């Protein structure tokens, strides 16, 4: 087996290699398919850096232009989507008012409210069991819908990490590259974000089901 050079993604392993190949060959439809696949995530990512949805849309349009101009020189040093999301962040940062800020790692609130534990740190109010009920497809779909709206209420950095990791399926390394985060900070944000979503689902499960 031929291994890819260090720091490169094997073209054949990239889920977007076929679409990228067609885009390079001048296939307009491939561009539309990539837009259908990624526009939502790009907007959500850009939204965290700019003051309005309109500015986010402009930044994403600008990013697509960057993709078209750069795709001929794209060398698979990362996956296509990592490269794409990185362009979005760069464009959004230029368009935005928010500085790329560091993540406070200390000063973190617990992910489960302290009142749910007794003095020894054991559960006083244990988690309400609902995972068995989530096997039901209808209930699962309702939970997913609630997660989607709850994600809008996450702090931007947490939302970005959860979107890229859990919705888009990027690896932790890819997320760190896109958002310029350390592994430790990426993990803290993921932890906070996922825990918050769990909390929302648990507290509203009675009305969700």
């Amino acid at each position, binding site marked *: 087996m031929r291994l890819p050079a260090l720091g490169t993604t094997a073209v054949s392993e990239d889920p977007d290699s076929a679409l990228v190949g067609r885009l390079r060959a001048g296939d307009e439809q491939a561009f539309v398919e990539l837009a*259908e696949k990624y526009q*939502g995530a790009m907007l*959500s990512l850009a939204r965290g850096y700019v003051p309005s949805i309109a500015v986010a849309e402009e930044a994403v349009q600008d990013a697509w*232009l960057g993709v078209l101009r750069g795709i001929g020189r794209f060398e698979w040093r990362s996956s296509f989507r990592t490269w794409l999301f990185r362009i979005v962040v760069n464009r959004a940062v230029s368009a935005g008012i928010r500085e790329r800020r560091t993540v406070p790692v200390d000063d973190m609130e617990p992910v489960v409210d302290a009142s749910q534990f007794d003095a020894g*740190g054991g559960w006083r109010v244990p988690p309400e069991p609902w995972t068995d009920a989530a096997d039901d497809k209808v209930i699962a779909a309702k939970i*997913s819908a609630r997660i989607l709206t709850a994600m809008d209420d996450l702090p931007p950095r947490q939302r970005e990490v959860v979107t890229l990791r*859990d919705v888009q399926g990027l690896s932790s390394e890819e997320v760190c590259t896109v958002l310029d985060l350390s592994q430790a900070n990426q*993990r803290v944000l993921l932890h906070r974000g996922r825990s918050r979503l769990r909390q929302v689902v648990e507290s509203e499960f009675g009305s969700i089901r």
Partner: protein
Amino acid sequence: MIGLSQRPGRKLACQQAVELVTGYLEGALPRAQRRRFEAHLTSCADCPEYLAQIRVIIALTGSITPGDLTSRMRDDLIGLYRRWRADEDQGIR
């Protein structure tokens, strides 16, 4: 952060275990801490449910399809593509 002040060798409390869940799922816990976490799961009545909930949250978040491309955005992007192509073609000539 809760959990980090835990001395090695001591048993984990639930309140500390919930803070280790992501590190555990990410494979980022040092070996001794991972062992204590796993030992806690086998002896705790409630933390396995908590971990299962986080796993379900991850799976269901993964089932979300990001918002559809609106027809306006689609038209805008096709316009963008065609203008770019026209510019490229002029550059080649």
